[in-house]
């Protein structure tokens, strides 16, 4: 690099006395053209230096021409080369990281609104995210709130969390309840706080959420991923724990009288997914979630213009306005069932609709039974 910088200096001095310019040979000695492309891949800045050298060459030629015939020379050409040269200098500054340091120095004492915004707590600004949009700093910033909901508000009791493998992919299948689904967040906390390996949970979120402002990106930052087979498959192949709520919207729109009656599990996508990726399934029964918002009736007609799947009417909502969004402080219990392996199925079974359906029904019944067992033994909804 030193050699190259020397060349540059040499050129700069030569510009003042352009009659003596004999650059191309000098450069050819310093760097044979053959090795150029090889070196270019070796360091990203090499290309910049080459480029600079080329522009300097051209500058030399233009100056030669100017001094040969000063009257005929079109000065615009020289200006063009100079502009290019300055642009190149800027590129080099940027590429070598010198700019960042200049910027730091310039901004060191800057105050005012911009730095005020920079100092805002993490909640208000996005940080670095992983491939799926999960922002760990943001997650930690809002964790105290969810901790409060988990330990103080819902007083979640967890059973059988050791059924989840310590590493590798795993699919959690749970019942879905409550109009605003808190069960995803609580499951995530249960895994993070109570599992010995502190596993990180990704949950699949229904499409309609991503149409709405704030909700979509919020869900995304805390580990929610749009529910579609491509995403689920990719997550599992990466060895993540993925929670799915196969009841979907049917689950969260259950009327109060239908609570804890597990709905049909979509079209068997969960089982297909498990068969395809050979992931084990852990069935999960969440008790308590389905009583957080006792849904008296719902309106599909009113919801259509808003793009919502339905508008809920609970004893509190919409009569109390935003306070109606508060969940009832029910006592929750999350039970993780025995792990179900799907490795015995081959890719042929994927297309066997009847088999997939049977397996789906089996899984649904298992979760229903786990729910029943817990419901019989609990004393009260709130304690």
């Amino acid at each position, binding site marked *: 690099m030193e050699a190259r910088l020397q060349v540059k200096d040499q050129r700069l001095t030569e510009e003042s006395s352009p009659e003596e310019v004999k650059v191309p040979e000098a450069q050819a000695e310093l760097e044979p053209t053959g090795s150029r492309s090889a070196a270019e891949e070796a360091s990203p800045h090499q290309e910049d230096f080459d480029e600079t050298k080329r522009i300097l060459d051209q500058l030399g030629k233009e100056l030669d021409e100017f001094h040969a015939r000063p009257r005929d020379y079109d000065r615009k050409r020289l200006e063009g080369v100079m502009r290019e040269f300055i642009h190149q200098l800027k590129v080099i500054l940027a590429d070598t990281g010198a700019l960042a340091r200049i910027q730091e120095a310039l901004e060191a004492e800057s105050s005012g609104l911009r730095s005020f915004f920079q100092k805002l707590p993490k909640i208000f600004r*996005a940080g670095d995210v992983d491939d799926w949009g999960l922002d760990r700093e943001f997650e930690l910033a809002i964790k105290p709130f969810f901790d409060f909901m988990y330990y103080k508000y819902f007083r979640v009791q967890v059973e059988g969390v050791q059924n989840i493998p310590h590493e590798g992919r795993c699919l959690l299948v749970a019942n879905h309840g409550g109009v605003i689904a808190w069960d995803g967040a609580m499951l995530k906390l249960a895994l993070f706080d109570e599992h010995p390996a502190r596993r990180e949970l990704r949950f699949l979120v229904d499409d309609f959420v991503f149409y709405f402002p704030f909700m979509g990106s919020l869900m995304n930052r805390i580990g929610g991923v749009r529910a579609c087979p491509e995403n689920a498959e990719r997550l599992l192949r990466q060895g993540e724990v993925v929670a799915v709520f196969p009841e979907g919207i049917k689950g969260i729109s259950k009327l109060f009288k239908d609570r804890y009656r597990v709905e049909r599990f979509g079209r068997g996508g969960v089982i297909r997914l498990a068969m395809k990726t050979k992931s084990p399934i852990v069935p999960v029964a969440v008790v308590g979630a389905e009583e957080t918002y006792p849904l008296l009736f719902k309106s599909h007609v009113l919801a259509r213009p808003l793009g919502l799947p339905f508008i809920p009417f609970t004893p509190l909502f919409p009569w109390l306005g935003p306070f109606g969004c508060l969940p009832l402080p029910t006592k929750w219990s999350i039970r993780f069932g025995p792990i179900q392996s799907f490795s015995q199925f081959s890719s042929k079974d994927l297309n066997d609709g009847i088999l997939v359906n049977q397996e789906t029904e089996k899984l649904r019944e298992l979760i229903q039974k786990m729910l029943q067992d817990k419901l019989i033994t609990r004393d009260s909804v709130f304690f």
Partner: protein
Amino acid sequence: MTETTNSTLIPLSPSAEKIVVVGAHTQLGEQIIQELEKRPEVKEYWVVDLHSPKKRAYQKLRFIQLDLIAPGADATLAEELKKIGASCILHTALKNNPSLNWVYAHELEVIGTLNLVSAAKAAQVKKFILCSTTAVYGASPKNPNYLTESHPVCEKACSYFVKDKIEAEKQVLKILNEAPQITVTLLRFCLIVGPRSHNYFTELFRRSVVPTLLGYDPLMQFIHERDAIRALKLVLYGDHPGVFNIVGRGVIPLSYALRKAGKWSLPLWPALAYPSIQSLWNLQMVSVPARLLDFFRYSWVADGSKASEVLGFEAKRSSKDAFLEFAKSERIERMSLSA
């Protein structure tokens, strides 16, 4: 150093003997010409455009002046190509920026590509490369987080900018049926950023205030211009038929990008943003028409694993690094080292 020298020079395949670059003034066209100029084995190459690249003196460049949308352009071009004995056509003449004159843009991208494809078939070239964009998948909340090449393109795209790209792609993919002996490569680049790149996104980010949509913070994906050129060189010098997404690793949220670039964001209520941006666009005060705002609202991240498996292409800079590098160079451009 030894390990890098082995992998540096991609051997020239026979189909890369006589390269014709179509479109010399697009961000990729401009840079690939400079690459060809540097490459010692390339003795000469041809450029088809309306105006010759004047930026600097190119030694090996042979210029063919041609208006792609003029009547009879296909026949003239076919004649020229036959005369040269062209073996490879690199089509970069798709617009980087949406244009207010969308009728002309449509003519250039769709009819121009049509003419070019028929000329290529008539002249029996060996390879045809098209540089497209991942915007053809469309931005939608229904997209999976990583769009693969097999994902259908967004037929219902409302933006002419994207629609024309899809049409152009279709024209090129037709070659597969009509002239199967031609190697067809279709590269879909995500947002290209870098000091030399000029597209609607970089133009937007060269302002100090960037309009955003309130409550939407999509994950964005970038590729550095040098990585883009590296990928282009791979398919230009070697033979790799197929469609490839050329993207950088990882994603960053739009708000993070704004903060890192030191920009003010102007969050607009979506219902208000579309008409106001459209009127600003009509006055040419923003670089994005309202119909492209969906790309700043929903996800359209593409998956680059096919390129890494088949081409062996890995972007050297992740999305984040590429963007940060762009942000830095953008800042220095604003600092006035006036000449």
